[in-house]
């Protein structure tokens, strides 16, 4: 099995291997095989399209967790310019599972905050696999309040397996840290746009996820408990995770129907990791459009809209 492809993508992987082999032959032989390559490429694209047009909720969970899926730090330099990372919660430490700082979105100063899972093993460990502790949420809060003071819109990129379930996390009040962010974000008097770029898991995701506009990438997921966790509780076995994913409706299409998610940003064929630049471009243009809309509304009105929207959840 090709580790760069998910289980349901293996037929695509096989075609891609063939294409690669033909390309190698092509480069040191005279035989004209470009026609053959072209056909295979078309076939591969069609197959990808076919597979991706029929993904189950659980398949999408896998795409959202794909090891090659772009993370916050892959997007920041592609979407923004002038990023200056700001560190620390000023109380306890700096949580590397949350990255934040000032940047420019097509010239306009913004505060960008995102969860970062980390790519290489060492990086993953340093970033606690994207599982923030209280100091991460408190750093985010500090940066958001600073953004409010300096009239910078806040953009958050959500991608976490959840807030860290550990002794230290509980000792330093992870519940309070998340709750505080929910409360303050509900009234932060600057536009707040949230984008789920990968895995939005529970309170740990929501802790930087309250705002005026919530978008999800097409193959990202957002859930109240991981499908494995849900399956463990209800079915007493994590093997039922696919059923749990289906039942909970963890994808943007379901969540948009429920009125929780405002927009879905389409991903390149085969997922964001197949073309990070293009994905970043799409996120950027979505952010710019939404920000323009929000900036056109007087702040009081924007805040009232945000509040009413929060109040409407579930109605």
């Amino acid at each position, binding site marked *: 099995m090709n580790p760069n492809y998910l289980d349901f993508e293996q037929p695509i992987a096989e075609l891609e291997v063939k294409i690669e082999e033909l390309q190698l032959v092509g480069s040191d032989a005279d035989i004209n095989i470009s026609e053959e390559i072209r056909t295979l490429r078309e076939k591969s694209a069609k197959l990808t399209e076919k597979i991706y047009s029929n993904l189950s909720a659980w398949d999408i969970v896998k795409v959202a967790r794909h090891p090659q899926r772009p993370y916050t730090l892959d997007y920041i330099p592609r979407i923004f310019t002038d990023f200056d990372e700001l560190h620390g919660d000023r109380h306890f430490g700096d949580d590397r599972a949350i990255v934040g700082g000032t940047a420019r979105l097509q010239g306009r100063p913004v505060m960008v905050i995102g969860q970062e899972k980390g790519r290489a093993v060492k990086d993953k460990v340093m970033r606690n696999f994207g599982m923030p502790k209280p100091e991460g949420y408190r750093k985010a809060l500090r940066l958001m309040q600073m953004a409010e003071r300096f009239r910078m819109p806040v953009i958050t990129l959500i991608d976490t397996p959840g*807030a*860290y*379930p*550990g*002794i230290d*996390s*509980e*000792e*330093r*009040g*992870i*519940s*309070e840290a*998340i*709750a*505080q962010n*929910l*409360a*303050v974000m*509900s*009234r932060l008097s600057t536009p707040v746009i949230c984008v789920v770029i990968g895995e939005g898991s*529970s*309170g740990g995701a*929501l*802790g930087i*996820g*309250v705002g005026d506009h919530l978008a999800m990438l097409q193959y990202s997921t*957002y*859930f*109240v*408990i991981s499908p494995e*966790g*849900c399956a463990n*509780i*209800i*079915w007493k076995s994590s093997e*039922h995770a696919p*059923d*749990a994913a289906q*039942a*909970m*409706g*963890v994808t943007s299409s*379901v*969540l948009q129907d*429920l009125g*929780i998610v405002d927009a879905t940003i389409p991903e390149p064929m085969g997922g964001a990791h197949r073309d990070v630049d293009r994905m970043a471009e799409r996120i950027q243009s979505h952010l710019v459009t939404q920000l323009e809309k929000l900036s056109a509304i007087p702040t009081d009105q924007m805040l009232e809209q945000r*509040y009413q929207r*929060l*109040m409407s*959840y*579930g*109605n």
Partner: protein
Amino acid sequence: MSWIDKILPSGVRREGAKRSSVPEGLWKKCVKCEAVLYRPDLERNDDVCPKCDHHMRIGARRRLDIFLDRDGREEIFTDIEPVDRLKFKDKKRYRDRLSQAQKETGEKDALIAMRGTLAGQPLVCVAFEFAFHGGSMGYAVGEKFTRAAQLALREQIPLVCFSASGGARMQEALISLMQMAKTSAVLERLKQAGVPYFSVLTDPIYGGVSASLALLGDVNIAEPDARAGFAGPNIIEQTIRQKLPKGFQRSEFLLEHGAIDMIVHRNDMRDTIARLLAKFAGTPVVERSDSDSDSEDDSASDEAGEAAVDYLPDDRDD
């Protein structure tokens, strides 16, 4: 062998004979110290074990009953019902689980709201019914809490919440998660408007309820030995692969780590909150608790009564 054992058919004889030594109804065994307690005594003591002081879990109605003044209570927002927006189905349909829980508890969902008075001070009070789906928060709980908070905001009267919950309700998926944002948002409005919100943590509080409304109180209070945390102990143990320290996530742990303001005995809850609220409202010293005539002769309550003779509010000019 006693005469009754002799006349019983052998199959029934020894099976659970020990347990049945506590007959249902008049007697109750303390789950902690196993003392056999006379139920009327227990009830007079607010369902706190008179022997070991263990605070037993009590339902939402009982909670409100022992907390609010006898007169002038009114249950509010009774029309809110749970909605199965996702048509959630696991081994059972969520709809069926709901009807079952409704039948068992007689409640529509896991939160009861009342307006009433505490030592004469008007307030809005909500309590979680843990027996209903583990007190989990879905739409109905979030909505009722929010409306109760909005009422408190409109009338500028305090909001008190007794929480007991396993967290967000899985079967309503992201709608449940968003109730965290919703309840936190309305509480922030209370905060901005200077309307006091007191959160009382009762055993147990976890997950989405812990990470939203339960820890956002102006004053956070816990009952003794209540467990509260974000992640359940099992999840933490699985993650860190080590045993958790003794007392982890208990009230005393929360107090030590600064998450709560105080631990308050159930017998003292009325007096303590009344005393605090009166100061928050800037009103004169609160009268002694009078609604629960049963607890008049209770010594713990007497002490609290004396402590209720407190300072008058400061001059606000400085």
